[in-house]
Structures are given as C-alpha cells and as structure tokens.
C-alpha cells in the first residue's frame, strides 16, 4: 500500500480522488478557532501547517494501543511499536519516491541538514574546497555550511538571485567549479515561493563531481517530490510543514551514502560492537538514529502522508495557486502594497506595504484574526538582498479559502489607512 502515489485512475472516473477545500477544512479542528474575537484566518502555513483529525488520532491511537520500545527487546509490544515505526518509514519514503532504507528519521529539516553538514561536510571538505549555497537559503541551510567551511578551511560561496526572485542560473553555473564539493539549495523558498530547478542544479554539480543537498521544508506539502528523478544526494523534510507533528522529519540519503557516512551522533541503537578499543556502527538508516526514536512523531508523519494521499493533489495545487493569484491581484489594487517573488512560484506571498513596518502590518492583521508571519523569516541574507529589514508573509494550504483571502486583503487595506 502506497498512500502517497498519485491515483492511477483518470480524473472523473470511479475511484478518482476528489478535492474540495471545505471538506479538507472540516478535518482540521484548529481552523474552527477564534482569535482576538475573529474567526482564525490561518495563513502562516509555511511556518507550520495545522494537523488534520487523522494525524491527531493516529498519535492518540498509537499511545493507546501500540506504544512500546522500538527496536529493543523481545516482547510483543516492542515488536508492535517497531512495526509501526518501520511502516512509518516506508510511508515517508513513498512520499519522496525513495526506498525505506534511504530514509533517516530526524527532528526535522534543521536536524537533517546539520547531520549532513557534520557527517558528510566534515568528511568531504578540505582546505580550499568550496560549498555553494544560494541567497534564498533559510538559515538552516546556510549556517551549517558556513560552520562546516569554518571548521574545514573551505570557502562558502553564495549564488545570487535575479531581481524577480529566481535563482540566477548563469551565475550559479559560473560559480560551480572543480573545487566545488557541495551545492546546497532549497527546493522552494520560504519567503518568495521560488521553485528552484533542482534537477538542473544536479546536472551542473555532477559535471564537477559535487554533491547536492536539498532543503525540502517547503516542497512536499505543495508539490510532488521524487528524489530519484531529482537525482540529489540528500533531501531533508519536516513533518510539521505538511500536516504532521513538529519535531520529526526525514533525511533522504542517496543509497551510496547510507552505509558510508560516519554518524554525527552516537549511542543506543546504532552500534554493532562497542568497546573502548574498537566500536563499529550498524548499516542502514538506523546508523544515524542514535537514542530512543520519536515513535509517535513517525506515526503522525505517516498519517500526514496518508492525508496527503487522500485528496486530488493536482486540484489542491490549482486551488492554492488560484488563492495566491487572488492575493497578488488584490494587493495590486492597494496603494503602496508590493509583492515579492516570482509570479509562478509556490503559494507563498511576501508582502511589503510602503511606510508600514512588517511587524506593524502583522499586528493589524492579527487584530482581524489573520495569522501571518512577519520578520526576516530566518533569511537574513535574502532580506539584505531584497533591501528590506523584514517582510510580512501569507502562505497558503489547501484548506484556505477565497473568503480568507478577502479577509487578508481587507486587513492590509485597513493597515494602509491606519498608517496613511
């Protein structure tokens, strides 16, 4: 059973998955909340999505009927818990079209990228080697590389973006050379919604023998992701950005790396032989999962994957993009409002309102029940490039509606008037 795979049935035929935002919405208890006396309009999905009932229930159900020690001991409950944990790995693998043996459970994207930078970065990088990142990167795909370069005497290079917020591919191509060991890029920008052409970057990197590390925080919630097609070496995800629990995620490692890399953490569950004289590590993803794992997190992640497979995702994407377009069009009619990012990106819209600071704008929106992100969004290099201290971001999920877009636009208009 592969819950993430696209339905083989044609749209409209019996058994085809449907998509209706209201039906999706009804599955999210949190979306019924009231904030500041107004119905919650949740447009901070790029920070964290809400969880559907099925994910909530999956965790409760696990705690109620299958909680036990994973991969340890011989009793039946331990086996049951282990089975749940490992079937969650299979589900998480299917979401990325990867093999379960290539999926390491992590705390999330930050944890996964730090693991790669420690294990892979420290092993691979030497004096004068180069790591290429981009101006789009979240601090979690920027700082681990900066620190790895500092440790190893390597050089960090930052590929620029164009004025429309796309990655400047010519500049990147020119920057990648025979000293480049690693190219680390985001799949989707959490600020601009830019979708980065990962396959193209992989072929550029392959030309010089460099590895490609992808920050997938913002992608699987919006796009189909196929790590084999992308051809990258590492791909990190966080469950909480795609309707699962916080504090759990996955790191895909291309098969050639799984058994070769030195773990960054040592302890229980990853050891073959341990003695003061000699210690060896097991092979497979468990090698990188020292300590008792976050089993309930993995169970919730699997339920989130099943949720993503329960509706027509292409239709959901079309809906999300229609909402994004409505926001962009609406802002176009508000004096002094400005949208940052390319027109055809993921449904993430960063908003500037001239003369109004991002935090003031977000406070006005909050008073209307509209939850958005304001600040540098963990992308200080990108803010510097855009020439702004901070932005206000609306990010969309399939459960958002046109009425919510209207609420957002009304609140932005109100902010414009208040600060006029």
């Amino acid at each position, binding site marked *: 059973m592969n819950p993430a795979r696209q339905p083989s049935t044609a749209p409209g035929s019996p058994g085809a998955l449907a998509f209706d935002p209201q039906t999706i919405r009804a599955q999210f208890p949190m979306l019924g909340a009231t904030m*500041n006396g107004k119905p919650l309009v949740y447009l901070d999905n790029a920070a964290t999505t809400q969880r559907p009932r099925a994910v909530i229930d999956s965790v409760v159900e696990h705690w109620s009927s299958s909680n036990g020690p994973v991969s340890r001991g011989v009793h039946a409950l331990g086996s049951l818990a282990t089975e749940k944990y490992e079937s969650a790995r299979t589900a998480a693998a299917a979401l990325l079209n990867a093999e379960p043996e290539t999926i390491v459970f992590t705390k999330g994207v930050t944890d996964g990228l730090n693991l790669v930078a420690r294990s892979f970065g420290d092993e691979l990088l030497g004096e004068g080697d180069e790591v290429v990142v981009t101006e789009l990167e979240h601090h979690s795909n920027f700082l681990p590389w900066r620190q790895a370069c500092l440790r190893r005497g390597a050089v960090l290079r930052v590929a620029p973006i164009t004025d429309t917020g796309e990655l400047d591919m010519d500049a990147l191509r020119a920057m990648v050379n025979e000293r480049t060991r690693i190219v680390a890029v985001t799949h989707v920008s959490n600020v601009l919604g830019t979708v980065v052409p990962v396959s193209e970057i992989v072929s550029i990197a392959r030309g010089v023998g460099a590895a490609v590390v992808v920050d997938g925080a913002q992608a699987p919630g919006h796009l189909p992701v196929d790590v084999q097609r992308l051809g990258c070496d590492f791909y990190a995800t966080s469950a909480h950005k795609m309707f699962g629990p916080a504090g759990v995620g996955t790191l895909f490692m291309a098969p050639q790396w799984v058994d070769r890399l030195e773990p960054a953490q040592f302890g229980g569950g990853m050891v073959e032989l341990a003695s003061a004289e000699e210690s060896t590590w097991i092979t497979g993803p468990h090698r990188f999962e020292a300590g008792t794992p976050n089993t309930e997190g993995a169970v919730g992640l699997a339920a989130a994957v099943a949720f993503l497979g329960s509706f027509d995702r292409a239709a959901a994407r079309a809906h999300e993009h229609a909402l994004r377009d409505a926001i962009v069009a609406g802002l176009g009619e508000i004096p002094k409002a400005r949208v940052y990012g390319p027109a055809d990106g993921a449904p993430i819209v960063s908003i500037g309102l001239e003369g109004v600071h991002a*935090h*003031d704008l977000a406070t006005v929106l909050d*008073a209307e029940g509209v939850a958005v992100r304001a*600040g540098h969004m963990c992308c*200080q290099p990108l*803010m510097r490039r855009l020439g702004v201290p*901070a932005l206000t971001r609306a990010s969309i999920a399939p459960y958002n509606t046109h009425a919510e877009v209207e609420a957002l636009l009304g609140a932005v208009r109100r902010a414009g008037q*208040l*600060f006029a």
Partner: protein
Amino acid sequence: MLESLYQQILLDHSRHPCHHGRPERFDAEAEGHNPICGDKVRVFVTLNDDGIEEVRFEGAGCAISQASASMMTNALSGLSIEEATAVRAAFLDLVAAAEPDKTSGERVNEELRSMAEVRRFPARVKCATLAWHALARALGEALKGSGGPPSGAVGGEKTG
C-alpha cells in the same frame, strides 16, 4: 483595541521622531537589536553636572520601537540619573510586567502612558522596550566613564 495601541501620538512619534540622529558629542552609546524582526536602535547619552543633558537615538524599525525611543528621549532628557532610572523602571513595569504596579502609570508622563496598551500585545512588548534596554547600557557606560555609580545601579537587563 488596535486604535488604542496605534494612537495618533504614537503614529506621530514614529513618523517624526524627536531627538533623532547621532549627536556630535556624547558620553556613551549602546545598541539594542531585536533578532526576531531585525529592528535596531542606537541610543546616545550626553551627561552634564546635573545628570542627563540629552538622550538621542538613531535606527529603523516598527512604529512601536521608533515611537517608544522617541518618547523616551523626550521624557529623559534633562532629568537626573535617579529620576531617569525611576521613569525607566515605571515604564518597563507599565508595558512589560505581568502585574504592573498601580502607580507606574502616574510615574511616567502622558506620552509614555499612551503606550501602556502594548502590554495587551505580547509579541510587541520587545519592540516597546528595545530602546529602554539600550539606554540602560549606555547610561551604565557613561557613568563608568565619569566615575559615577556602577552600571548595576541603572539596571543591566539584556535585550531580547
């Protein structure tokens, strides 16, 4: 609720801040930085024999941080160190304490009192206190330099 936060007086201060810009001569300076939103203020203190001759600031940020800094320079310029320290404590109590003292509102001027509503916006309290924390450090520096009381006397909170 929103209008009681963004009162006209706050908007006026944020648009046309008082005592804004780096002075030619000053005894100490300190920077406050809010890492969450990137707001920055730099506070300059000039002392004379009676206490604080002038407080000035420069920086960029949200309406609340800018207005608070501007109102602070108005309120504290010309006060003795003891008076300024008392006003600062009362203001911080008014906007940030879990249970503010009933007299805090009376111990600050009307402009500062207009910011009391910030306390109902927990995410914004740091914006309102940013300049005041920088001031404490600048004053501590200035007094150290002039052989006055140690910086602990004016409170040495870290900025958030």
